[in-house]
């Protein structure tokens, strides 16, 4: 099975692609102006943020970025299209020939480009005779179109691909959750030789349903020895089936020309200078390869919190990764509400480092972390005095140890062993050794 997707995502800018109308939610036809209504005499001007976001996506997907791009007019007639042409990028997409890493497999990305959203139609009236009620708030909202190669192999994989892509893009450029309104896709699916296009599916759930239905439909046809017809179909959301798109009375000839009102954009330099955030899944892969931690652990970290992962990486500079993992996913994350304060991090790092180096034991380290997090605990035992008392008591009652110690330092081991046993692991061995030696040297 081969599936290719042509996805449209709304970019999270504050103003529209070609005018400064707001993109926020509003009553019908409130976010409108002569430009996005296509009034005679109006003309577009390009939103810088939208261009940067589009370029960021093209770079993230490892596309070849063109040095110079422009926009085209795609002319066709429909009630939601104010100018009866859409301004899009036909000849010069922002990027081409990229890829997305899906669980170790590369999904080819053919192109990434910008275009404007048309208005929204509400169908009103008797079925089959509906007229259009148009809301132009959506007209002119920036869309990024991402076209994949037919490298996806199942509806489930397509779903997972989009989930992961959205996770990454959300971090990269603030793409919002793609609900039915903001995500639209045309899918190409073929089981055999012929490709079927399912056009204009709204939302992820519908896409998965449409693909599953279509896969099943094609599979049944082939099993019965019939051929799959190469055609364009639509997905009926209510009946959850795809059906042949009615023969269009007029086949459109889009008659692409350049859009002279916008001019050209030298994006090569702009793209090279973009400071791209490291996206979660990319970061997870880096954590696995740099620190050898497990994939599941890495994903858990990055999808929980960016700053928690930052702390994890900081800890890895001082202690072995396994230690960093257990402390980060353990008491630190349990108390993250308080510990996320970067002011506390130097102390956290010191505590974990001390634990790792053996200067304190795990219990003491945990106690200190909890204390830092402001958690009430049993009163801590004053380690120092207690140990000194243990040592003195033993040496006093075993004077021969002191005599032996004068001849051979190894005699201290008896004392060390006793103190370790009696203190029940309250102290780290290093602490005990140091203290015993100190006490015995004092008496010698």
């Amino acid at each position, binding site marked *: 099975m081969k599936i290719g997707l042509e996805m449209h995502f709304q970019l999270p800018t504050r103003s529209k692609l070609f005018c400064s109308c707001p993109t926020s939610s509003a009553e019908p036809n409130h976010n409108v102006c*002569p430009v996005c*209504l*296509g*009034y*005679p*005499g*109006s*003309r*577009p*001007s*390009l939103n810088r943020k939208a261009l940067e976001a589009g370029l960021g996506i093209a770079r993230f997907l490892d596309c070849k970025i063109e040095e110079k791009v422009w926009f085209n*007019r795609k*002319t066709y*007639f*429909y*009630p939601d299209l*104010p*100018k*009866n*042409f859409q301004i899009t990028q036909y000849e010069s997409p922002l990027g081409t020939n990229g890829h997305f890493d899906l669980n170790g497999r590369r999904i080819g990305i053919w192109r990434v480009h910008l275009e404007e959203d048309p208005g929204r139609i509400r169908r009103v009236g008797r079925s089959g*005779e509906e*007229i*259009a009620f148009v809301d132009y708030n959506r007209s002119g909202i920036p869309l990024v179109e991402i076209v994949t190669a037919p490298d996806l192999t199942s509806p489930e994989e397509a779903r997972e691909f989009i989930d992961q892509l959205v996770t990454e893009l959300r971090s990269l450029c603030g793409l919002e959750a793609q609900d039915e309104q903001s995500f639209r896709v045309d899918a190409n699916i073929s089981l055999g030789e012929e490709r079927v296009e399912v056009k204009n599916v709204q939302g992820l759930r519908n896409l998965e349903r449409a693909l599953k239905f279509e896969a099943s439909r094609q599979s049944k046809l082939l099993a019965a020895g019939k051929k799959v017809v190469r055609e364009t179909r639509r997905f009926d959301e209510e009946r959850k089936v795809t059906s042949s798109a009615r023969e269009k*009375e*007029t086949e459109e*000839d889009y*008659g*692409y*020309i*350049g*859009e*002279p*009102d*916008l*001019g050209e954009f030298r994006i090569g330099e702009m793209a090279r200078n973009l400071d791209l955030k490291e996206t979660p899944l990319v970061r997870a892969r880096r954590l696995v390869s740099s620190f050898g931690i497990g994939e599941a652990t890495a994903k858990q970290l990055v999808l929980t919190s960016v700053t928690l992962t930052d702390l994890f990486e900081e800890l890895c500079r001082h202690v072995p990764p396994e230690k960093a993992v257990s402390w980060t996913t353990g008491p630190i994350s349990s108390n993250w509400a308080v510990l996320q304060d970067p002011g506390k991090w130097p102390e956290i790092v010191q505590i974990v480092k001390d634990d790792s180096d053996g200067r304190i034991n795990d219990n003491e380290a945990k106690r200190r972390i909890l204390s830092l997090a402001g958690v009430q605990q049993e009163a801590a035992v004053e380690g120092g005095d207690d140990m000194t008392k243990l040592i003195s008591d033993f040496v006093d009652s075993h004077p021969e140890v002191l005599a032996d110690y004068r001849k051979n330092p190894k005699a201290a081991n008896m004392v060390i062993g006793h103190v370790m046993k009696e203190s029940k692991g309250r102290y780290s061995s290093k602490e005990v050794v140091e203290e015993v030696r100190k006490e015995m040297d004092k008496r010698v």
Partner: protein
Amino acid sequence: MSAIYDLIRYAQLKHRAFTEIVEDLDDTKFHFSAKDNLCADGFQARAGSAVLDGYRPPFDATPIRKMKDSGGQLVGKTTMDEFGFGTFSTNSAHGVPLNPFDLERSCGGSSGGAGAAACLIPGHIALGVSTGGSISGPASFCGVVGLTPTYGRVSRYGLIDYGNSLDKVGLLSRSSSLVAKHFRTISGPDPKDPTSCAQPVLADRGKMPRSLAVPKEALQNLDPAVRSSFQDALSRFKELGTEVHEVSMPSLRFALPAYYILATSEASTNLARYCGMRFGRREEELNQHFNDFFTGVRSESFGDEAKRRILLGTFCRMVGFRSRYYLKSLAVRQLLIEEYQKVFRDHDAVVTPTMPFIAPRFEEIGRMKTLEMYGADVLTVPPNLTGMPHISVPCAYVKGLPVGMQLVADHWKELDLLEAASAWEKAFIYRFPEVSP
């Protein structure tokens, strides 16, 4: 001031220069008019077309706003060919303007009304628009000064589009000083029109051209009276101390086809929005398939020339023809720009007659075939295609009718042209028709 108002009314009633005029003049302001494809709050903007009947723009075009901000009163909208499609203003749905010198002759087009207003009303400044010569032509036929600035010098925000890479807002008036003054007013970058944001800052003054180039290819197929008038004008120019040289510009023969293909390609997309929804002529019967809805309004409301250009432009963009026509024309524009700039390395301006004949009679126009009419633009199209600034000034009178001379300078050098026009009008006195309103 009431004398001026009388002249405005006279121009409207007798010569159909205006589609609409104000009721009163404001004495404290200077008066100007705007071609009816420029949007202005308080007036209709119908661009000579029935499809825009009833369109009242809720905003001012930037050039109009600038004129108002500098103390001007917009006194009327001037008649034009539908969307700019024409050379004689005969394709107007709102009245055909009549030549100030002879009521049976054309004012030229497509800014015919602007030419008439500028001629009939002293001290008047008329904003016009040129795509292929629609300021020069009327300036020539109506005997006034007409400046077409460099493409991108004046904001097109609020201009109802014909061709986005060809349209320019310009000025017509009896005197070059008035043109020069208001050229400054309307120039300058406007963020609402990105193509106006590439211009260099306007200098304080221009330089009088010292050397003029006459392309020999431009002297073919001229009316003999125009040819000899033009030669006389060149002699007069030499007396001003200017050199005149003949040059060859072989690519000029490609200009007309490339222009018409690019202009109509762009126009056919610009006119797609006129479909009975939201503005202009509306289609009330919603209970029809959208294709029928759109097709009905368009077929009933567009004039004959508009349909012809829409069909031509649509064809030139279609799959299978796009390379040969649309893309080729883009390349030819580049070729012509380079050829002009080669001439400008050695000369300051290119000079030709503006039109191949004097203002034709309406009955002559009625007998012209389409190609003949397009051919009338042969001298104005080249600088329009290349976006270079050009100015038309009266240089002779034949049978009592004005003959125009057109100077073309390199991009951004409008001020040099205005220097030349200023020097010229001291040497050659313009005549205006006797008017008794």
